[in-house]
C-alpha cells in the first residue's frame, strides 16, 4: 500500500495546561514546564449573538481550536473534518434525563444541538462556509479516524482540509460508563502544498494494536480524553523533529505516522 502524504499548516491545541498553540508550543516542545490547569474556551467570536448563545461548551472548545488553526486561511473555502468520540455528551445527557422524568420535555435547541455534526454546523455558520464537511465518531480512536479520513480527502481532492478533534467529559450517569476527564481539542490544516508548512506527514494503516507505550505527565493526558491522543503528533510538530509515531486507532489496528519537519 502506498502511504498517504500531506503537509501540516496551521495548528491549535486547547486542553489542560495547553491554552492555545502559540502559548503551548514551548511546553509541547519540552522547552517549558507543563502543569495541569483546566483550559477555558472563549465564546466563539465569529458567531452571531443567537448562535453564540445556543452553542454549548463542547462546541466552543471545537470552534476555538478550529479558529486558531485557520489563522491566515480563507476560512470560507476550507473543507472540514470534525472527529469526536462523545459528541456533545452534556446535551445528550440532559435530553436522556428529561425524557425519563414524568412530564419531561426536550427543547428544540437541545435536539438540534444533539446531532454529532453540531460543532461542524456552527463552524460553517461562523466561517460563512459552504464547503463540504465530515463528522466522525471513533470512540478512543476518534483522532486517528479523523486523521485517516482527512488525509484521504486531501489525497483525493487536493484541497486543504481543516481537521478538528474534540471531546469533553460526559455528565452523570454516563461518566461512569464512558471516561473523559477534561475537555480537549486539537486542530490542524492539512494540504498537498508545502508552502509555509511546518512538516510533512506520511500515514500508513497497520494491522495490530499500537504497541503499549507507558506515558507520564503531558502524554498521560491521552488516557483522559480521546482527542488528546493527538499529543504525540503535536509534540513532534512543536519540537520540529522527525518522528515515527504509532497512533492507536482500532482494537486491532493502528496508524504508522512519519513526521518530517519542513
Amino acid at each position, binding site marked *: *500500500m502506498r502511504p498517504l502524504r500531506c503537509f501540516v499548516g496551521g495548528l491549535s491545541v486547547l486542553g489542560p495546561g495547553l491554552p492555545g498553540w502559540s502559548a503551548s508550543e514551548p511546553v509541547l516542545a519540552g522547552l517549558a514546564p507543563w502543569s495541569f490547569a483546566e483550559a477555558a474556551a472563549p465564546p466563539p467570536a465569529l458567531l452571531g449573538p443567537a448562535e453564540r448563545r445556543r452553542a454549548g461548551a463542547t462546541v466552543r472548545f471545537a470552534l476555538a481550536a478550529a479558529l486558531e488553526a485557520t489563522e491566515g486561511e480563507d476560512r470560507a473555502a476550507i473543507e472540514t473534518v470534525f472527529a469526536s468520540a462523545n459528541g456533545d455528551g452534556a446535551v445528550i445527557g440532559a435530553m436522556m434525563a428529561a425524557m425519563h422524568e414524568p412530564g419531561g420535555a426536550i427543547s428544540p435547541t437541545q435536539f438540534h444541538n444533539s446531532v454529532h455534526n453540531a460543532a*461542524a454546523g456552527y463552524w460553517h455558520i461562523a466561517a460563512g462556509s*459552504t464547503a463540504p464537511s465530515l463528522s466522525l465518531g471513533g470512540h478512543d480512536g476518534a483522532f486517528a479516524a479523523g486523521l485517516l*479520513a482527512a488525509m484521504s480527502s486531501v489525497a*483525493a481532492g487536493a484541497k486543504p482540509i481543516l481537521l478538528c478533534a474534540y471531546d469533553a467529559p460526559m455528565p*452523570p450517569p454516563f461518566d461512569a460508563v464512558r471516561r473523559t476527564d477534561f475537555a480537549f481539542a486539537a486542530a490542524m490544516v492539512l494540504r498537498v502544498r508545502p508552502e509555509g508548512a511546518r512538516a510533512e506527514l506520511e500515514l500508513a494503516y497497520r494491522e495490530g494494536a499500537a504497541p503499549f507505550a507507558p506515558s507520564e505527565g503531558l502524554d498521560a493526558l491521552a488516557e483522559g480524553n480521546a482527542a488528546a491522543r493527538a499529543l504525540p503528533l503535536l509534540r513532534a510538530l512543536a519540537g520540529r523533529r522527525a518522528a515515527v509515531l504509532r497512533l492507536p486507532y482500532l482494537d486491532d489496528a493502528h496508524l504508522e505516522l512519519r513526521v518530517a519537519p519542513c
Partner: protein
Amino acid sequence: MWPLAITGRSLVTALGTGTNSLREALRARRGGLAPCGFPGAPDGIWVGAVQGLEGAAPPPALAGFDCRNNRLAELALRADGFEAAVAEARARHGADRVAVIVGTSTAGIEETERAHARRAPGETALPADFDYARTHDLQALANYLRARLGLAGPALVVSTACTSGARAIMQAATLIAGGLADAAVTGGVDSLCRLTLNGFNALELLSPGPTRPCAGDRDGISIGEAAGLLLLERPSDARPGAPLLLGAGASSDGHHMSSPHPDGLGAVGAMRAALAAAGFTPAEIGYVNLHGTGTRANDAMEDRAVHHVFGDAVPCSSTKGWIGHTLGASGAVEAILATLAIEDGLIPGCLGIEAPDPAFQARVATANTPAALKRVMSNSFGFGGSNCSLILGA
C-alpha cells in the same frame, strides 16, 4: 476516482427485508408506514418500523453488541446475499483491504434509553451490564459490521445527521481513491428511538398521518428506521452490468442549525458538485430522488434548488411516503432505491398525493411512470446544514 461499482447491496426497511420488498412495494404503490406503537413516543404519529428484529440477535461471540441498531445491521447482512458478496471481496483483496465506512445518527442509543428505563426507582447509575462502547457509541456500528464480516481494514463512522448514509458512501469512495482500501462496506443504519421521535416532535415537524412529501398541504415527517448497505469496489473487480456509483458531491449550508437555506444554496452546491464529479450535465440525469422529508421548509427549499439546477425538465419525487424518513440511513437506502429504479425502468411518483404543491416549479412525479433511466441523482440534507448528492447509474 469515479465511477465505482456496487458489487453488493442490501436493504431492510418498514417494507421488509431484502431489496425485493422495496421493489415490489414501489411497483404496487403500497406504503409501509403505520401508527406508532413505539414505547415513549409522542402520541398520534406514524412511523416506518422494521419487523423481525426479535430474530436478529448477534451471534453469541458478539453478544455484547446487541442493540436495536446492530440488529437492523444484522438483518441487512443476512439479506440479498450481502454477507456472501463481502466474503468474495475479502477473498479477492484480503481482509485488511476491505474498509467499513458507515453512517448513523444515533447508533445504539435506544439501548441506553432501555438502560435508563430499567433502573430501579431512585437508582441513578446505569445497569452494570450496559455496554456503552458496543451499543451507544457511534463506532459500535462499524465495529459490529467489521467483526461480524471478518474484516480488518479501516473503519469509520460518519454522523452528519440525515446525510450520514450518503456522506459515508462518498467517504468510502474517497478512501478507495486514496489507496487505503480496495473495497468498502458502506451505507447507513439508523433505528427508532425516543430521542429522535421526541426531538422531531419538539421541533413540531412530525406528521399526524403518513408523511406526504411535496403535497401542497404536507404536514411533516414520518420517522422510519432502516439499514442500507452497499459494497463498493473498482469496476475492474465487478461483474459486467453491476450498478455504478457515478459521482458524489457535498456542501454545507453555513446558514442555520436546523433550517435549510431558503433558496437551497447548499443543496444546489451539493447537486452541482456531484454532477461535476460524475462528469454529466443536468440533462443527462433521468430522475432525481428527492430528500423530500415532507416538512414545509425542506420540500419548498428543495423544489427551488432542483428547479435551479434542472429546470422543469427532469422528473423528481420523494419516496419517503413508502418507508418514512430513515435519517442517517436514508441516503444509503435511497441510493439503493435509485439503482432499483434504473433496473426496473420506473420513476416512483410521490405516494399519497394527487398533485404536487401548486407553488412548486420542479417536475414532481405523483404517479409511477415507466422510463428508461440511465442515471439517477439521490439527495440528502441534514441538520447542521449538511448536504450530499449521489449519482447512481447502470
